[in-house]
Structure formats: C-alpha cells, structure tokens
C-alpha cells in the first residue's frame, strides 16, 4: 500500500512537470506541441549523454559509452556514498544541463515551423519528435540506444529502503517549483500576451509583438521545464533506455491530463494529473489480475491504450474545458474596479 502511494506520488511529480510545460505551450500559448516527448527525451540525453560523458572524461575511463558508463557508475556511487554533497551537486548539474539542452532544442526545432498554421505546426513537431526518438533508439552512441546506459545513483548515500521516498520528495519539490514558476509566468503580462496569441495572432501582431519570437520563447521555456522530468526520471531509474520515451507516454498522456484537468488552468492540470496517475498506477499494479480475471489472450497494456484513447475522446466530446475551467484574469486594476463596483451596488 505504502509502495503504491509512493509510486503514485513519484509519477504525479514527474507528470506534473511535463504537463505544466505543455499547459504553458498548448493551454496558454495555443501551440499544439505534439512533440512533447522530444523535450523529455532531451532531458534523458542531458543526463545519459552529456553529464555521463563529462564524468567519463573526468575519471579517464575508456571504451564505448555503454560499458564506460557502467564503470563510471561504480566509481561515482562509491564517492557519493561517502560524500553526499557530491551527489547533490551531481543532481543539480544534471537538472541544469537538462534545462539548457531542453531550451536549446525547444527553440531550435520550432524554428522551421514557427510561421506555420497550427495543423502544419502539430504535424512537424510530431515528425521531429518521432524521428529523434527513432534515432536515439537505433544509434547506440548517443545514449546507448536500446541497450541503454547506466547513470550514477545521486542518492547512493541513502540506504536502499528509503531511497525511493527521498527521490519522490525531490521530484515533488521540483514539480512544486515548476508550478510556482509557471503560475507566476502565466499571471504576468507575458502570460496574458500568450493568451492573446492563442485567441488571435493577428491582433498580437497588430499591437507590435512578433508572434514568431513569442512562439520560440514559449517553446524554449516549455521544453526546458519538460526536460527536467526526463532528467529526474533517468536519475530515478539509474539508467537511460531510449525506448521508454515513447510518444504515448510523454506526448499523448500529457495531452490527456492537460485536457482532463482543464487547458489554460494550472491548478486544473495538477488535479487532472493526480486523477490520471492514480488510475494508471492502479491499472499497472493490477494488470496481471485484470488479465487473469478477464481471460485476456493478450497483454493488458493494449487494454490500457484502448481505455485511455477512449477517455481522451470522451473528455474532448463532453468536457472539452476540463475539470476546472480556465478563469478570467484578475489583474490589479481589474480587481480595483471590481471592488468599486461591489461597493456601489
């Protein structure tokens, strides 16, 4: 039972980070980023490909990335178990690298499509993300492809049993900080500009703002946040396998959670995430029982796909505004006027 709750909390944290970034891009700015998985994958590349290489270079380990990463893992774990500070610094290094790499890729890959209408944009982003996923999967030199690479355990100083709760706590802290950041950002003039862009790009252009720059900025910030989740997930599982960054898990499910919670409303997205993650974890926990009980001649994962596909469709059809609707913006002047009106009547 405790295990289930920790598992739900961990995935809630990871998905909250991704979903807030998607909400910033899709919910507020109206960019249909069907390539969210790419940013998460970049977070994993930052840890498995970049930080790992730095460590390999620092320790002077030779050989290909797959074997060398294993050796580095042993060395680093040994150091971290005596020196917790080293592990914490490594964790921060990973997160910073991930967000830098994420923001660069986010900005770079929206460039060719920044001028396009939303359907072309969605297609292009999906295509880029799919191809990047495929390349990372086949090419064993980036992050070990389908063999995967090992990652040092940044919490090696914590005894095995309490490692998972501590890591979950770290994830939840990062998720909370992301929430504060996105909430502040979307309540600023910039956030209001994003909403204006979503509603009508021509009006934004007419007021002298460049829609292309806005899109690039937003995609960059969004990807930087989403990459954090990729990095945390890799650090948690102490290895990176490109296969685990599929479109279903990191693009479709985030869209489902954002729409379920309420696009354009950060609190709604958090609630949507919690609902979805709870259902998903319980399904995963009891999948053997479900398979056995229903006498399924196939794996339960296919049933999960049908179920969540259907859920998404029902949300679109019956509750397109989500569990919590987007609220009008109450800026200080509007609040003042509202108070005055309230006093008069």
């Amino acid at each position, binding site marked *: 039972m405790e295990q289930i709750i920790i598992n739900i909390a961990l995935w809630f944290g990871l998905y909250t980070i991704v979903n807030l970034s998607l909400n910033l891009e899709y919910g507020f700015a109206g960019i249909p980023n069907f390539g969210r998985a790419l940013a998460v994958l970049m977070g994993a590349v930052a840890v498995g490909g970049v930080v790992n290489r730095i460590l390999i270079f620092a320790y002077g380990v030779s050989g290909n990335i797959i074997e060398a990463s294993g050796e580095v893992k042993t060395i680093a774990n040994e150091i971290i178990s005596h020196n917790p500070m080293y592990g914490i610094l490594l964790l921060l290094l990973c997160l910073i690298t991930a967000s830098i790499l994420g923001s660069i890729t986010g900005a770079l890959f929206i460039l*060719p*499509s920044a001028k396009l209408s939303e359907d072309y944009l969605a297609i*292009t982003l999906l295509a880029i993300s799919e*191809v990047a996923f495929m390349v990372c999967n086949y090419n064993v030199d980036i992050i070990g492809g389908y063999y995967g690479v090992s990652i040092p355990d940044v919490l090696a100083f914590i005894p095995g049993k309490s490692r998972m709760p501590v890591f979950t706590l770290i994830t939840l802290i990062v998720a909370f900080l992301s929430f504060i950041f996105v909430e502040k950002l979307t309540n600023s003039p910039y956030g209001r500009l994003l909403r204006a862009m979503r509603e009508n790009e021509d009006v934004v252009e007419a007021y002298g703002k460049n829609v292309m720059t806005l899109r690039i900025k937003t995609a960059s910030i969004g990807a930087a946040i989403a990459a954090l989740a990729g990095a945390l997930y890799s650090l948690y599982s102490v290895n990176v396998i490109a296969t685990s960054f599929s479109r279903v898990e990191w693009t479709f499910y985030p869209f489902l959670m954002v729409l379920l919670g309420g696009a354009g409303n950060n609190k709604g997205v958090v609630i949507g995430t919690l609902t979805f993650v709870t259902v998903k974890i319980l399904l995963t926990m009891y999948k053997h029982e479900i398979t056995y009980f229903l006498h399924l*001649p196939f*794996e339960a994962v*296919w049933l999960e796909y*049908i179920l969540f596909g*259907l859920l*998404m469709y029902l949300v679109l059809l019956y509750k397109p505004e989500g569990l919590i609707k987007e609220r009008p913006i109450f800026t200080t002047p509007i609040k003042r006027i509202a108070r005055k009106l309230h006093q008069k009547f």
Partner: protein
Amino acid sequence: MSVFEGAIVYSNLLVLLSIGLTITYITTAVPNFAQGSFAVFGSYIALTFFRLFKLHPYGCLPITFILGGLLGVSTYLLILRPLIKREAQVVILMISTLALDLMLLGMLGSYSGYLQSITHKSTTKFIFTPYDFSIFGFSAILIFSSTVIIITLLALFMLLYKTKFGVALRASMENPSLAEVMGVNVEYTRLFSWFLSGGLAAMAGCLLPFRQEIVPSTGAIIIVSIFAASIVGGISSIYGALIGGYVIGFSESLITFSLTGFLGTSILLYSRVISLIVLIATLILAPRGLTGVNWRRIVWSKLSLT
C-alpha cells in the same frame, strides 16, 4: 528485389496512403494522425485471411479495401462528426485522431494477441516477403502495387472529372460553404472521402508486409513518411499527394542507399531522417508544397534575369 524496384514499390504504397490523407484533409480540414494505423489495420486483415483461410494477400486486396473503407467511414461518423457538430477547433479534431490512433493501436495489439492464441503462429511481428513470386522477371509486389496505383488514379480521374458527383465533390473541396449553398450535400462528399481514404490506406497496408516487417505499432513509424509525402506535394492537392509520395519514397530509398557507400549499411535505419529533412526544407522554402509553388513565375523571373 533491386533497390530501384524497392523504391518504386515503397513510393506506390506511400502514394496510396498520402492520397487518402490529402483527400480527407481537403474535405474535413483535419490531418488524420491515425492514417498509419489504418494501414496496419489492412495488414492485419490480410494476415487474418492468409492464416485462417489460406487466401493469398493479393487476393485479399478488394476485401481490405472495403473493410478499410468502413473503418474510414466509421472514423468520420463516430469520432469526427460529433466533434464537428459541437464546433470543435482543428486542434481538438487533431487530438481526437491521435486518440483514435491510440485506440486502434490497442485494438490491433489485442487482436494480434487473440489471433496468435488461435493460430499458434507469431502475429505480433510478421512479413509476407517469402510468399511473394515473380511475374516476367519482375517481383509480383511491383506489378500489383503499380496496378493498384494505376486503377486508383484512373478511377479517381473518371469520378472527379466525368461524373456529376465528381463535380459536386470538387466544388465542395474548393469551397464547402458555397457548394452547400448550391445544393451539394457536403456530408456525402465527406463520407465518400473517408471511405476512400480508409480503403486506400488498408490496401497499402495489405501490400506493406511484402516490403517491411509489421508490428502493431508500425503505424506510428510510417506516419512521418505519410505526412512528409502529403506536405511536400502540397496537402491541399491530390496531385500533390501523388508527386510527394514519389519524391519522399525515392529520396528515402535511393538517398539512404547511395549514402551506404560512405557511411556503411547502418545508415539504412535512418531513412526517416531523410523524409524529415525533405519535409523541413519544403516547409521553409515552399510552405504550400510543390504544387502550391507558382512555377511559371519562377521560370519567368529566371528568364528575365538573363
């Protein structure tokens, strides 16, 4: 099969898929992200008839066309029409096709598990290449895929330009609201386009196992090439799908093959990177695709420069 032959076969299949994608985009204004899974649906129908009734996949083409067409029509009726009635935005329609793609993936996966349990042969991964034969020195897949393309194009041409329904269809593609005012039932044209789209995709899927291995999630892999083909040609023109299919099919097959000389055979895995590069180059240089470019003006400006 020679590389060139393979390129033609692959391009033929891509053309079938991208014509379907384009025609539904023109009539319904939504890019169908489930087009790849439509094809895999066709592959599994062919596999079912092959395993259970020993019907050769080539003989199965008409059946896959009809069943695929029904899948297309039900996609429109059950998924898209209720949303369009509620005046959903394009993004919502796109997400609904993504949801359909996931549902189809789930259904194909469970069906493959079920089929495996009754035939006791692997169905989660299959290929038809060993059952191919040759006709007059050419591989049968080349003959069949080319025949399917020629028949499709002729039928489409006859329908669009020689019948009254075709006139109505073209009118509602050009300007749906005007066509509706003139008494054309836009609903019929949409139903027809979805039937055709599903049918062509399923036929392509029936032939696809002769060229590559099929798994339930193959749709997610080929969707990149389908979109690239449609956009490179110009997603608002049926000719565009034809041109784009051959451009993407040939560049994927031939460019990767010619690169093997420099970079080794491992490059063959990255053929989709080529379609992505062609796609991005098109979006930058000619966002409306090859058929959207005013070629006469370009030639004219070149001539006047000299």
